[in-house]
C-alpha cells in the first residue's frame, strides 16, 4: 500500500510531527506571552476562518491581488528583458551585474517616499514598489543563467548553422529554463513583499492596510490571523513554484 | 647526490607487508537503491617494498579497495593484517594516501600544505623545515612554496598532495588514480617522479589506475580486477628492473604486457559498461 503513496510514509510522518511541534510551540509561546501579546492557535485559526467568510476581507484581498498581479507581471517581463539584453554581451554583464546587485541589496523601503511623491497614494504606487522589489532578482538570475550557459551549446548551435532566433528558441531558452523558473519564484516573492510593504506604509485598502489598522487598534488576534493567512498563501504558492522548479531542474 | 638522506628506513627482510584475508565489502542499501556488493572476497599479499598497480573496469571497487586499506571504510567481511597485526578499523600507522581529487588545502600556501601533517605530529620546527625543503625540492615545487594552490595547475597541485604525503615518511603509500585529471605527457613525467620516490623511500606502493600503460610501466606486479564485485582475476609480474622509466614503453615486452592486460580486461569492461547502463560517468560504488 505504501508503495502507492508518492510521499514515503516516514516522510509524511516527519511532516506531521513538524506541524504538531510548530503548533505546540505556538501554543506554548502564546501561553507564556499572554493574550495581550500573542493569540493561541485555536483562536487565531477561528478568526482566520471568519475572515475567509467575510466580504470586507475579500475586497481588501482583491485590492492586494490586483496590485501584486501587475507588480509580478511587470517584474518578470521587465526583469527577463533586462537580463537577456545585458546577459547577451559579456561587457554589458560585467558592467551591469554589480550595479544591479547593489540596487538589489539596498533597503528599498527607503525609496517608498519617492514612489509616493511620484505616483501619489494609488494603485500604481503599490505596483511600482512591487516592481522595484521584484525586477532586480529576476534580471540578476537571468543574466547569471545566460552567462553560465555552456559555450559548447552555442558552438553546437553555430555548427548546426542555426539562425540567431533558432539558437535563442531551441538552445538558449531551454538551457536557461531552470534558472528562469527560479527567477519566477524569487521575483514572485519579492514582488509580494514589495506590494505588502507599500500597503503597510501608506495605502487606503489592501491586506497590508488591514494589518496596519489592526496593529494601531492593538487587535492581536486580527494581526495574527492576517499574518497567518498571508503566510499560508505565500508558502502555498512558493511551495508550488518550488516543486515545479525541482521538476524542471531535475529534467535538465 | 650522495648526501641525499633516505626518506625512510625500511626493513626488507619480511616479505608480506599487508595481507588481505577474504576481505569483502557491501555498501548498505540507501533510499531507492539496493545494497551494492562492491568488493571481494579478496585474498592476496602486498609484499614489502613492492610497487603494485591495480587496474579494472570503472566502478569495479578499486577505490573501495584503497579506502578499506586506508582505514576509511571498515570492510564487512574478512581481515587485513599490516605487519602481521590486524587492522582495527582506524587509519593505520605509516599510511599515506594521495586521492584522485585535488585535496590540497586552498587556504594554505604550498609550503604550509606540505608541512601540515608534520605540524600535527608535533615535530620540531627545524625538522619540519628540513623535510619540507627536501620534499619541495624533490617534487620541483621550490619556486612555488609561497604560492596558493589556486595559482597552480592541476599537475602542480597533485604534486603538492604527493609532497604532503611523502614528508610524513609513510611505509605504505596508496594512490587512487592520482594522475587521472592530467594530460598524457604530464602523467608520464609524474609517473617517473613516482618511481624515483618509490626507489628513494623503499616504501610499499599501491597505485590504483585506469591506464593500462601507466600500470604496466610503473609496477612490479599488476593486479587485474573483475567487474563488480571486484576480485582479482590475475596478478601479473612485470619483471622490470628497479631502475626504470617511461622509455620502457618502447620495448617489445611492454606491448606484450599491455595487450595481455587488455585481453584480461576487455570482457570485464564490457560487463561493467553494460551493467552501469547509460550513466557510465565513472560510476563508482557510492
Amino acid at each position, binding site marked *: 500500500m505504501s508503495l502507492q503513496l508518492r510521499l514515503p510514509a516516514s516522510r509524511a510522518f516527519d511532516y506531521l510531527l513538524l506541524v504538531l511541534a510548530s503548533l505546540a510551540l505556538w501554543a506554548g509561546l502564546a501561553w507564556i506571552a499572554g493574550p495581550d501579546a500573542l493569540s493561541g492557535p485555536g483562536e487565531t485559526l477561528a478568526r482566520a476562518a471568519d475572515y475567509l467568510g467575510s466580504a470586507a476581507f475579500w475586497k481588501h484581498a482583491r485590492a492586494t491581488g490586483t496590485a501584486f498581479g501587475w507588480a509580478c507581471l511587470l517584474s518578470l517581463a521587465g526583469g527577463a528583458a533586462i537580463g537577456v539584453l545585458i546577459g547577451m554581451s559579456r561587457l554589458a554583464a560585467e558592467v551591469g551585474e554589480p550595479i544591479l546587485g547593489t540596487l538589489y541589496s*539596498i*533597503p528599498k523601503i527607503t525609496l517608498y517616499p519617492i514612489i509616493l511623491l511620484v505616483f501619489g497614494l494609488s494603485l500604481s504606487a503599490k505596483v511600482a514598489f512591487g516592481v522595484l522589489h521584484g525586477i532586480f532578482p529576476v534580471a540578476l538570475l537571468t543574466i547569471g543563467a545566460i552567462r553560465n550557459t555552456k559555450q559548447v551549446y552555442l558552438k553546437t548551435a553555430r555548427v548546426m548553422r542555426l539562425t540567431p532566433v533558432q539558437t535563442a528558441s531551441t538552445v538558449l531558452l531551454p538551457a536557461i529554463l531552470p534558472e528562469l523558473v527560479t527567477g519566477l519564484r524569487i521575483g514572485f516573492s519579492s514582488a*509580494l513583499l514589495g506590494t505588502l510593504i507599500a500597503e503597510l506604509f501608506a495605502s487606503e485598502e489592501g491586506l497590508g492596510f488591514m494589518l496596519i489598522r489592526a496593529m494601531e487598534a492593538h487587535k492581536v488576534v486580527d*494581526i495574527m490571523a492576517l*499574518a497567518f493567512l498571508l503566510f499560508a498563501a505565500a508558502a502555498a504558492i*512558493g511551495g508550488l513554484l518550488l516543486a515545479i522548479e525541482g521538476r524542471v531542474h531535475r529534467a535538465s | 647526490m650522495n648526501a641525499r638522506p633516505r626518506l625512510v628506513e625500511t626493513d626488507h627482510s619480511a616479505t608480506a607487508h599487508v595481507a588481505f584475508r577474504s576481505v569483502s565489502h557491501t555498501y548498505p542499501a540507501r533510499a531507492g537503491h539496493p545494497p551494492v556488493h562492491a568488493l571481494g572476497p579478496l585474498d592476496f599479499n602486498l609484499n614489502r617494498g613492492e610497487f603494485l598497480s591495480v587496474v579494472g573496469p570503472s566502478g569495479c571497487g578499486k577505490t573501495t579497495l584503497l579506502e578499506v586499506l586506508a582505514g*576509511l571504510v571498515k570492510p564487512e567481511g574478512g581481515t587485513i593484517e599490516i605487519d602481521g597485526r590486524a587492522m582495527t578499523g582506524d587509519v593505520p600507522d605509516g599510511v599515506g594516501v594521495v*586521492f584522485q581529487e585535488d585535496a590540497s588545502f586552498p587556504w594554505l600556501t604550498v609550503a604550509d600544505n606540505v608541512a601540515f601533517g608534520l605540524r600535527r605530529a608535533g615535530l620540531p620546527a627545524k625538522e619540519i623545515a628540513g623535510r619540507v625543503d627536501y620534499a619541495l625540492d624533490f617534487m620541483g615545487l621550490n619556486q612555488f612554496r609561497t604560492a596558493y594552490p*589556486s595559482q597552480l595547475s592541476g599537475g602542480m597541485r597533485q604534486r603538492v598532495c604527493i609532497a604532503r604525503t611523502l614528508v610524513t615518511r609513510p611505509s605504505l603509500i596508496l594512490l587512487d588514480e592520482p594522475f587521472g585529471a592530467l594530460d598524457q605527457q604530464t602523467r608520464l613525467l609524474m609517473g617517473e617522479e613516482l618511481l624515483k620516490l618509490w626507489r628513494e623511500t623503499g616504501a610499499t606502493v599501491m597505485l590504483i589506475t585506469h591506464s593500462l600503460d601507466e600500470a604496466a610501466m610503473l609496477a612490479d606486479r599488476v593486479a587485474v580486477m573483475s567487474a563488480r564485485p571486484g576480485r582479482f582475476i590475475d596478478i601479473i609480474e612485470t619483471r622490470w628492473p628497479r631502475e626504470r622509466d617511461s622509455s620502457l614503453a618502447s620495448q617489445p615486452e611492454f606491448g606484450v604486457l599491455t595487450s595481455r592486460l587488455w585481453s584480461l580486461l576487455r570482457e570485464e569492461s564490457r560487463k561493467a559498461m553494460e551493467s552501469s547502463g547509460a550513466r557510465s560517468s565513472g560510476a563508482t560504488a557510492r
Partner: protein
Amino acid sequence: MSRVRLIQTLLIGGSVALLEILCRAGVIDHFTMIPPSDMLLSLIRIARTESWFWPDVLYTLRNLAVAIVIAVAGGFLIGLGVHAVPRLRRCLDPLFSSYYSVPTFVLYPLLIVIFGIGPASLIVMGALFGVVAMIVATLTALDRIPRALIKTARIMRLDALRGVLMVRLPAAAPHLFTGLKLAVAYCVIGVIAGEFILATAGIGRRLSFSYNNFDNQTMYGVLLLILVFAATLNALLNIWEKRLHQRWYR
C-alpha cells in the same frame, strides 16, 4: 577590468548628472525630488547642525550590529545542528526554501505588540530576516566541503574538533562568507524597514518622519546617507567574497 570600472563610473556619474539636469531644468519638480547636489549639501548640513543626527545614526548602527551578530551566529549554529540530523533537515528544507517568499514584515506589527516600540523589536525583525539566509548558506557550505579534504583529515588522524577547526571550517569559509554577506544585507533591510514602518528613533524613522512633515531637504539627505551606506557595505562585502572565492576555487 579597468574598462569595466570606467564604464560603470561613467554610467553612474551620467545618471546622477542627468538627474541633476532634469531637476535643475524643472522637468522633475522640486516637491518630488531635489537635485542630487542639494541632497549631498543637505546631508552635510544635517550632519553638522542637527542634534538628532548622531544619536539616530548610532541607534540604527547599534541595533543593526546586534541583529547581524544574532542572525549570523544563530544561523550558523542552527545550520550546524540541522545538518547533523538529516531527517530534521529533510523536513525543514521546504520551510527554508520558501521562507523568503513569505512577507516576514507582516510579523513586525506583532513584534511591536510583544516587544514594544524599541530596539528589541527592530533587532528581532532584522535577525529574523537575516537568519535563514545564514542557515541555508551554512547547510550549503557543509554540503560542499570536498570529500577529498575530509578524507585527508581522517588520514592525518585529526580528532573531531581539529578536523572541524583545521579542515572543515576553512573549507566551508567561502560559502559561509556568502551567507554572512546575505545575512548582513537582509539585516540592514529588516532594521531600517522596521524603523521606517514604526519606531521612536533611528535613521529610518527619521526618513519617514521628514516625509510625513513634507521636509524634502532632510528626507533626501537622510535617503542619500542610507543608500550610500547600504551600497558601500554591499560593495565591500562583494569584493571580500570575490577574493575568498578566487583563492578557494579555481
